[in-house]
């Protein structure tokens, strides 16, 4: 068996707290990265990029963001769509106001702006908890969407209120606008995902992560042992919104290229990202990826099977799709309430014990 930790001794605490304590996991991680960076860009075409990879990567960032807030800090938020909109509009305003500044900086700044907005909307979380908070975050969702729809300054007074991403380049290669090629779209998202995931992992494995988790698991006890709840919650809102904002900006600038706020960043988006982290696994970075992959790929796969393979009418397939996705969500929750990430962990635990069942 390859998968063993025996012989894989840790000699320092630093080694013990690394992300993949088991050597085999570490190799797999590097292999995945290598394929993602060095192989995929050469094979990716428009369909793969636009229908699967780019949305997957962007949703993964959003899911990581929400996971920090909900999975790690325990504050359920249904305002993700609204915060993504903040990122998108911030990016649009920056792109059009400072055309000469690099898009990468704009993207990061969009995250920063969203972080500020997110922290502001996180203020009530000090008093309001649980589902009350979840519902309260809808105030952010509806208000932000309304605002972006209502105030022409945000969409540069265009007639319809739509925003369009002009062409911007990185190292001379266009990454936004109509002339962007699939691989460039894919790569910029990949870079952001990778950096975001590493940052998220670093934040969650140390003090900050433990502060958040203590608030999540029992906020009163956390406060009594010395956690400042306001600070902990606001940082969670801010960091989470930072990621979500970047995701929103990428979603607009790189993926869609044009956005109508109510349609793209409506409440459905908030739910979708929440699904991702719950199906993937609350409090798990890997789960954010798994959940995003699952919910991006599943509908496409179901459509392929239903329409292309079986040749059924599209509306029937779409309805069945709802039935199947709904049933699958329930099935997954029943089988493993802690998400795909937990599945993976149990599988590994079994593998480690193999061939003994326990």
């Amino acid at each position, binding site marked *: 068996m390859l998968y063993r930790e025996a012989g894989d001794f840790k000699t*320092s*605490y*630093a080694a*013990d*707290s690394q992300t993949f304590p088991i050597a085999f996991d570490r190799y797999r991680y590097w292999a995945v990265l290598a394929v993602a960076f060095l192989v995929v860009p050469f094979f990716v075409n428009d369909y793969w990029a636009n229908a699967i990879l780019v949305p997957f990567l962007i949703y993964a960032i959003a899911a990581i963001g929400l996971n920090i807030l909900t999975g790690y800090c325990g504050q359920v938020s249904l305002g993700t769509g609204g915060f993504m909109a903040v990122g998108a509009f911030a990016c649009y305003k920056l792109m059009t106001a400072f055309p000469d500044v690099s898009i990468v900086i704009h993207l990061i700044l969009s995250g920063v702006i969203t972080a500020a907005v997110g922290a502001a909307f996180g203020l009530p979380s000090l008093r309001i908890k649980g589902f009350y908070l979840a519902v309260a975050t809808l105030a952010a969702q509806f208000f932000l969407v309304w605002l972006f729809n209502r105030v022409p300054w945000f969409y540069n007074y265009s007639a319809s209120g739509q925003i369009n991403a002009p062409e911007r380049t990185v190292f001379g290669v266009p990454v936004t606008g109509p002339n962007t090629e699939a691989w460039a779209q894919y790569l910029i998202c990949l870079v952001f995902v990778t950096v975001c995931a590493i*940052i998220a992992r*670093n*934040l969650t*494995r*140390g*003090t*900050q992560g*433990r*502060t958040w*988790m*203590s608030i*999540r*698991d*029992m906020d*009163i*006890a*956390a*406060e*009594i*042992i*010395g*956690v*400042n*709840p306001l600070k902990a919650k606001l*940082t969670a809102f801010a*960091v989470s919104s930072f990621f979500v904002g970047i995701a929103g900006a990428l979603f607009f600038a790189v993926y869609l290229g044009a956005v109508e706020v109510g349609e793209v960043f409506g409440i459905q988006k908030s739910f979708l990202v929440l699904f991702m982290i719950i199906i993937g696994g609350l*409090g798990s970075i890997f789960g954010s990826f798994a959940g995003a992959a699952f919910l991006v790929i599943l509908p496409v796969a179901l459509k392929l099977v239903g329409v292309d393979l079986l040749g059924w009418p599209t509306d029937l397939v779409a309805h069945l799709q709802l039935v199947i996705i709904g049933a699958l969500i329930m099935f997954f929750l029943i089988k493993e309430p802690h998400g795909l990430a937990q599945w993976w962990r149990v599988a590994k635990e079994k593998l480690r014990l193999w061939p003994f069942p326990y």
Partner: protein
Amino acid sequence: MKDTVDSYVTADGRTIGGVMMEMRNITLRFGGVKAISDISFDIREGEIRAIIGPNGAGKSSMLNVISGFYHPQEGEVWFRGAKRPTMKPYQVAQQGIARTFQNIALFEGMTVLDNVMTGRLNKMKVGMFGQAIWKGAAEREEVENREAVERVIDFLEIQAIRKTPVGRLPYGLKKRVELARALAAEPKLLLLDEPMAGMNVEEKEDMSRFILDVNDEFGTTIALIEHDMGVVMDLSDRVVVMDYGRKIGDGTPDEVRNNQDVIDAYLGVSHD
């Protein structure tokens, strides 16, 4: 009230210092319920102070007042010679007061190690950006604190369950992890709410040993609530007895044991 200045030496040779914490005329009401009425007592530097009394007497509420979770309607809390203003619990914790809880309050989603590490949150200074980068300051700090935590873990003999999520642990071990978390904060004053509940004699012996050692080795002052009279009488230097929110006795274990009010209200038959 006892003389608050003098220090004294106990029978087994430990020196008890001056007053560290003093509760003055504390009254705490919840709507119509008076959980604590006009209670005063003090805790001295280095001593083990027990609070006993029947169920619902207000013992846990008193600990909650000390740790800033409840704010009494009347009375003052003096800590290290100064009157403590109304504080948030986390500010109290930052002053060096750590505690365990009667209904275990561990962070169920985290491993034992992480739980104990949370005890050191106030010792960690690297900011968020440092942590985001990890390499360098954050990692160094993590390792330093991890070492301190490992010492606590060794001390309490919970090495084997380091990486277990606490949700899976049996009750008794959870109590021990809670103690570890409190100890990791290196508190000056340690508050224990029924640390031995749900343990058998063997485990109580272990726990007693830990409590004594903490007191001995680190000089930590300890206030504990306990219903096992054997433990209370053996471990504590002085005992406060509460009943229905009132104080009905305060003194050395022997004094308390022979106090008729205490016998009537709490001990029933004499215990030994």
